[in-house]
C-alpha cells in the first residue's frame, strides 16, 4: 500500500540523503581538480590519479590491505559459518553461552579496547613462543576475530530460515551428513556466505584502529597511510585514492546485491516449479 506523505516528511528524507551523499560527491569532484590548492578550481585533470601510480608507499599499503582483506575475510567466513551452524543446529552444548557472547561482543566492543588487548596478547605470545611477529599475521588474526562476528550473524539468520527438511530428506535417501550439507544446505546459504565475505572484506579494508594497534613497524595498511596523510595536512592525491576506493567498493556492493537478488529470485522460481 502506498500513501501520500507530507511535503515536510519528504523534504527531511531528501535532506538526510543529501547529507549522506554531498561530501562524497564533492570529494570525487575535487579529485579531478588540477589545482593543488583545495579551494581553487584549476580545471579538469587526472594528474592526481597518475601520481598515485608512482607513489610506492600507497601502492605497498594497498597491496597489504588487499592481501589482509582476502585472507581475513576467507578465514572469517569459514569460522563464522561453523559458529553459525553450531549455534543454530546444536541447541545444547558446553560453551554455547560463551560462543554466543563472543560472537556478539565485537559489535559493542570499542575498537580501541579490542586493539590494545589483542596487541598485549601478541606481545606476550611473542615473548613466550617467539610467534607471531607484529605485521601481516597479527593484522589478519585480529581482523578474523572481529569479522567472524559479522559473518556468524549474517549466516545465522539465513540458516534459521532455511528448510531443514530438505537436508533430512537427503539423509533419509542415504547421503551422509557432510554430503547432504554440501549439496542441499550450502547452496541455500551461499548468498549469506557471499554477503558475509563481502562485508568482512570491506570492514577489513576500512579498519584503522585495530590495525594500528596490532601492526608492527613497516606494515602499514591503506587506512593507516591515509590517516597519517590526512593528519599531516591535505594532500590532493588522497582525494584520488579515496575516490577510487569509494567507487570500487560501491560498485561491488551494488553488483553483489543485484546478483544475489537474481539468484534468490531464480531459486524461488525453481521452488515454485518443483511444487507444481
Amino acid at each position, binding site marked *: 500500500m*502506498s*500513501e501520500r*506523505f507530507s511535503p515536510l516528511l*519528504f523534504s*527531511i*528524507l531528501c*535532506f*538526510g*540523503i543529501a*547529507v*549522506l551523499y554531498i*561530501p562524497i560527491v*564533492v*570529494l570525487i569532484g*575535487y579529485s579531478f581538480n588540477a589545482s593543488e590548492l583545495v*579551494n581553487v578550481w584549476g580545471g579538469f585533470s587526472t594528474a592526481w590519479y597518475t601520481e598515485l601510480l608512482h607513489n610506492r608507499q600507497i601502492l605497498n599499503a594497498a597491496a597489504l590491505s588487499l592481501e589482509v582483506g582476502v585472507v581475513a575475510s576467507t578465514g572469517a567466513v*569459514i*569460522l563464522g559459518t*561453523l559458529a553459525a*551452524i*553450531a549455534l543454530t*543446529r*546444536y541447541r545444547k*552444548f558446553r*560453551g554455547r553461552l*560463551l*560462543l554466543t557472547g*563472543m560472537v556478539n561482543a565485537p*559489535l*559493542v566492543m*570499542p575498537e*580501541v*579496547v579490542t586493539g*590494545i*588487548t*589483542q596487541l*598485549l*596478547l601478541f606481545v606476550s605470545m611473542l615473548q613466550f613462543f617467539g610467534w607471531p611477529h607484529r605485521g601481516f599475521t597479527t593484522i589478519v588474526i*585480529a581482523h578474523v*576475530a572481529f569479522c*567472524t562476528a559479522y559473518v*556468524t550473524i549474517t549466516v545465522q539468520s539465513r540458516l534459521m530460515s532455511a528448510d531443514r527438511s530438505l537436508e533430512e530428506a537427503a539423509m533419509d535417501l542415504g547421503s551422509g*551428513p557432510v554430503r547432504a550439507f554440501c549439496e542441499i544446505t550450502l547452496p541455500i546459504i551461499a548468498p549469506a556466505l557471499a554477503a558475509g565475505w563481502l562485508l568482512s572484506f*570491506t570492514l577489513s*579494508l*576500512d579498519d584503522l*584502529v585495530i590495525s*594500528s*594497534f596490532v601492526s608492527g613497524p613497516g606494515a602499514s595498511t591503506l*587506512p593507516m597511510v*591515509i*590517516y597519517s596523510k*590526512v*593528519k599531516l595536512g591535505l594532500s590532493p592525491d588522497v582525494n584520488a585514492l*579515496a575516490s577510487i*576506493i*569509494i567507487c570500487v*567498493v*560501491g560498485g561491488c*556492493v551494488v553488483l553483489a546485491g543485484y546478483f544475489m537478488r537474481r539468484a534468490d529470485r531464480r531459486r524461488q522460481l525453481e521452488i515454485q516449479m518443483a511444487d507444481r
Partner: protein
Amino acid sequence: MERHGHWLIILPPLLFLIVFFLIPFAFALKISFAETAIRVPPYTDVLAITPDKHIQLSLSLSNYKYLLTDEVYAVSYMYSLRTAFFSTLICLLIGYPMAYAMSRSSKATQNILLLIIILPFWTSFLLRVYALEGIIRENGLLNTALLRFGLIDHPLKIMRTTLAVYLGIIYSYLPFMVLPLFATLEKLDNTLLEAAADLGNPPWRAFLDITLPLSMPGVIAGSMLVFIPAIGEFVIPSLLGGPDNLMIGRVLWDEFFNNRDWPVASAVAIAFLVLLVGPIALYQHYNVKGMEL
C-alpha cells in the same frame, strides 16, 4: 564418531575466539597492574619466577590511582557519554522522519531508498569522515557557498570544534539509526491506523498513540547502534575535533601511541570495559530476554 562429530564444527570458532578475543582481556587486566618500564615490552613483570624458583606476584594499583587523581580521565569519560547521548538524540530526530517517509512509500521506491541508505554504510568510514572535512573546513564547500551568497562575512570556524565532532558522528552513524527504524516501521500494521482514523482520531493522535509506541523496539535498536560505537569513537574526534574534544577512545590512543604508557592505557581500557561496555551488554542481554517473554 557420530556422537562427537559436532565438536569438529563447534571447536574451531570457539577456540579461535577464546584465544584471540577473550584471553586478550586477561592480558590487559594483568598489564594494567604492571608499571611502565624502559624495556621491550615497556612494562614490568606482574608474574615472575624469582631466582630461587618462587613465583612472584607484584600487583601495582598505581595506574588505577592515577586514573582517579588525574581529572583528564573523568572529564573525557563524561564528555564521551554526553557527546554520544546528544548525537544519538539528533540522529533519532533526523532518522525517524526519514525512516517513516521510507516506510510510507511504495515497494519499488523502498528498495531504491534502502540501497541509497545502505551504500554509505559499506563505504569506508575513514574516507567519509575525510570527505566531511572537505565540506566543513575553513575554505570548504559550506563556507564558500555561504560567502558567495553573502550570508556570512567571515568563514565559519567549524573544524576542530565540538560542532565538528557532532556533525561527524551524526553524518557517519545516521544509516545505523535509519535501518532498524525502517525495519520496525515497515512491519507496522496499517489497519490499526485506519481504525484510529475511522474512530475520529486526527493523524498526529494516531501517530502518538499507535505508531510511536509500536516502533519503540526500532528506536531502542537504532539508538544502541549509534550510542555504543559513538562512545568509543576515535577517528572523528581525532580528525575533526580540536584539542578540547577529548573522548575516551582518543585518550586511550594518545596514552598508548604518544605517551607509550601501556599499563595506563590498559587500565583505561579495563575501566572503560567495566564502566561502560559491561553495563550496556548486560542491559541488552536482559532487554532481549524480556522481549522474548
